[in-house]
């Protein structure tokens, strides 16, 4: 009745084939670091100084989507399953083996018996079960949320010391990958018993995992020290390096100001910095430093067109907006070569990607025709009008995304040419939080999602998740049932090939209905000194310091 890991591997293989077929230029275009260092044998020891753009705000793993959080959680926790960041293949880690029932409602994991938490307690099946019981169900009373990556979770069942089974109410084909994400980082049962406040900055040294690093020091809002565990000996068997981490410690320093971060790197005060802005890349590489731009492999940086709004309900208007957007100019002007032009809703590095660029061409003449057909005629001020109403739309500035405002300003200029007035919403957090949920206030939603699983497309568009298309507003009924159905099929189809077909169907559907304007495949851009060797990252580009070493 059960299929073994081989079937799981076949699933992965299929997606890898899709990937290579598409000639992924994305992940780690210039990262020879993933292979051996260029100056001979790796050295153990040393402290690496890493500059973060923002302070972390919590270490509860399902909250680790925020990059500063994820960068820490990724290094202090292990996962049941390891996802190779290059091939996205799922491999054993804390789980040595697993079985998945045919309908993907039961997952049985065999776990290693030699793993200990940093306080010395052994990790057993009981502890693993406790982790997923919390991440799969959350606990509102402790303000601990459900992990976005885990769908349909029902319960855990501890079979013996090293075997644990998870049951799901409905097929959960994305669970194996979910068990590999940082949102499923394994923590000590005592840590899990805490509330949101116990995972907060100030208590970070109390967050106990089994990972290669331990948080040994924290200065609230400014710095955090990760120290290597001497007795760490359970790295994923597929990794080249085994045993303790090569670095003695990683010192994370929060440096919000861009020019200070880059200047500190160039003057040798820091080893690695995150979030090198596109406009600063030339300065970093010009000075002989390395730029790493690993891809985030999920839903591309894009504008979701909220078709529920009365102006945008007309397919021709949506098509006109796409045809009126010179995406290549946006990428060339605002970004760099590390931000490849998007060719679908999904990144070309993502599993299940299909090229939909035929629907994304730039043709301002066609855009104007479509708007004319839809009844939007040229108005006196250059903005098109219909029955006296001006063709005015609002898009949100996506503050976490790189150079969102600059990109949107350029798009707004491009749309002026076709007679569309695009306003950019920049507001205080409260006004913003309300406005982005309301299609009457924000008609185009600028965002992206990083996750290397087929479920990612459902996360972005389903009305119960990120709902970026505003397919449902408040208690109103869902507007596009067909889209909802397609997305649910992706997240609940047990057959791997079928699941890929569903993901492709969603992309095609989104493209044909002109629901999304994909802009570029979003990287995380790091700058590093040339003495930093084997700098690595997990599947969506959060730093992984395990193999890194300093050649000085």
């Amino acid at each position, binding site marked *: 009745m059960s299929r073994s890991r081989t079937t799981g591997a076949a699933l992965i293989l299929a997606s890898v084939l899709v990937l290579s077929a598409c000639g992924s230029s994305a992940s780690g275009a210039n990262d020879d670091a993933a292979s051996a260092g260029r100056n001979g044998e790796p050295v153990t020891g040393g402290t690496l*100084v890493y*500059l973060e753009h923002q*302070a972390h*705000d*919590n270490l509860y793993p399902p*909250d680790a*989507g*925020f990059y500063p959080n994820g960068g820490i959680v990724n290094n202090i926790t292990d996962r049941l399953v390891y996802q190779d960041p290059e091939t996205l293949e799922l491999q054993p880690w804390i789980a040595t083996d697993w079985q998945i029932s045919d309908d993907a409602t039961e997952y049985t994991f065999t776990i290693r018996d030699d793993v200990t938490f940093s306080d010395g307690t052994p990790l057993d099946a009981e502890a693993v079960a406790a982790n997923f019981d919390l991440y799969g169900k*959350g606990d*509102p*009373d*402790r*303000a601990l*949320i*459900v992990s*976005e990556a885990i769908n349909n979770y029902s319960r855990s069942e501890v079979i013996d010391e090293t075997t644990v089974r998870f049951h799901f109410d409905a097929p959960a084909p994305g669970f194996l990958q979910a068990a590999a994400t940082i949102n499923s980082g394994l923590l000590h049962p005592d840590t899990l018993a805490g*509330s*949101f*406040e*116990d*995972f*907060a*900055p*100030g*208590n970070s040294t109390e967050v106990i995992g089994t990972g290669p690093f331990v948080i040994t020091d924290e*200065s*609230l*809002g*400014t710095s955090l020290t990760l120290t290597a565990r001497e007795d760490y000996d359970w790295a994923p068997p597929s990794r080249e390096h085994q045993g303790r981490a090569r670095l003695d410690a990683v*010192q994370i*320093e*929060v*440096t*919000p*100001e861009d*020019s*200070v971060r880059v*200047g*500190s790197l160039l*003057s040798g*005060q*820091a080893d690695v910095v995150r979030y090198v802005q596109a406009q600063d890349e030339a300065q970093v590489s010009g000075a002989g430093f390395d730029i790493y731009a690993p891809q985030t492999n999920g839903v591309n940086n894009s504008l979701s067109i909220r078709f529920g709004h009365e102006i945008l309900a007309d397919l021709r208007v949506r098509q006109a907006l796409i045809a009126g957007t010179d995406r290549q100019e946006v990428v060339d002007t605002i970004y760099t070569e590390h931000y490849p032009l998007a060719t679908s809703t999904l990144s070309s590095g993502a599993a299940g990607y299909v090229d939909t660029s035929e629907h994304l061409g730039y043709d301002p003449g066609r855009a104007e025709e479509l708007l004319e057909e839809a009844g939007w005629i040229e108005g006196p001020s250059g903005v098109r009008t219909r029955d006296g109403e001006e063709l005015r739309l609002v898009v949100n500035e996506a503050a*976490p995304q790189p150079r969102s405002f600059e990109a949107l300003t350029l798009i707004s200029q491009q749309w002026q040419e076709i007679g569309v007035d695009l306003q950019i919403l920049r507001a*205080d*957090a*409260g*006004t*913003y*939080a*309300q406005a*982005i*949920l309301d299609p009457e206030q924000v008609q185009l939603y600028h*965002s992206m999602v990083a996750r290397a699983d087929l479920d990612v497309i459902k*996360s972005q568009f389903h009305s*119960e*998740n*990120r*709902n*970026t298309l505003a397919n449902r507003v*408040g208690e109103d009924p869902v507007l596009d049932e067909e889209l909802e159905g397609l997305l649910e099929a992706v997240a609940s189809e047990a057959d791997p090939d079928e699941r890929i077909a569903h993901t492709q169907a969603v992309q095609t559907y989104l493209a044909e209905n002109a629901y999304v304007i994909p802009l570029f495949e979003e990287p995380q851009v790091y700058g590093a000194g040339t003495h930093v060797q084997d700098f690595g990252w997990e599947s969506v580009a959060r730093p992984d310091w395990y193999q890194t070493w300093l050649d000085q």
Partner: protein
Amino acid sequence: MHYLLSRLGQAATVLLVAFTAAFLLLQAMPADALMIRFESPELGLSPQQIADLRIAYGVDAPLHVQYWHSLSGVLRGDLGYSIESGTAVRTILADALPRTLTLAGLSLVVAVLVAFGIAFAAGLSRFAWLRSALRAAPSLFVSVPVFWLGIVLIQIFSFRLGWVPVINPGPVEGLILPVLTLAVPISAPLAQILVRSMDAVSLQPFVTVTRAKGASELWTQWHAVLRNAVLPTMTMAGVLFGELIAGAVVTETVFARAGIGRITEQAVRTQDIPVLQGVVLMAAAVFVAINLTVDLLYPRVDPRLRGKVAAAR
């Protein structure tokens, strides 16, 4: 004694009013921290999950219940937890306050020294050009943007010359550049007021009498003029110190220091009400304390005020 008690009573009232005003104003803002934190599409939570969280936090309880809840917390010394990160507000403030006080206090000392230097030199100087250059300095200083000054100082002294590191500095090293950055614009209004009141005092008959009695220019400036010109400057310094704490936002961001300024900026950005209330209470307390100190210091500097205060006692 009675004077001190009534001043303390006033202080408590000011704090209560500040707390209440902050509570009401923050409630009147659009949305709330919980919405910003959990309803952000970034977390992908379903409407049901969000509703459960709102109940757990009690944010939809009637206003007076929430007010009483947080007021009684404050009275017990419990300022609650940050909604954004979950850290106890008391921890956040206790951590940030000393850093900001050190920065602001040192900056004020440096600013006062610079202001006195400018004013005194301008008063003494025999050359007209030097005098006017010194008198122009405050206008120049006040128009230098703190943000720009901070970046320029870092670029020159840390990145180019390598004299002081900005990453991992020692406790003293880490203060040099931020203090300079903050002191320059603060010294400007102090110097301006001091120069102006020294001018005014210089024209008083008693100064002429002092000179006529044969006092040297230095003695005249120091004993006769400066001493009498210092009161308005002191008032200004008291006000500026409060501003220094608030104005530390930019300096703390540029120099990556986690002080009150940066915490306030972050809390405002995320509408983190417990943190903001804590900051308001603390800021009110600091202002009250400084005003009290300045008022109590007046009679020490100016004997004419001693009688008035004594009468008030």
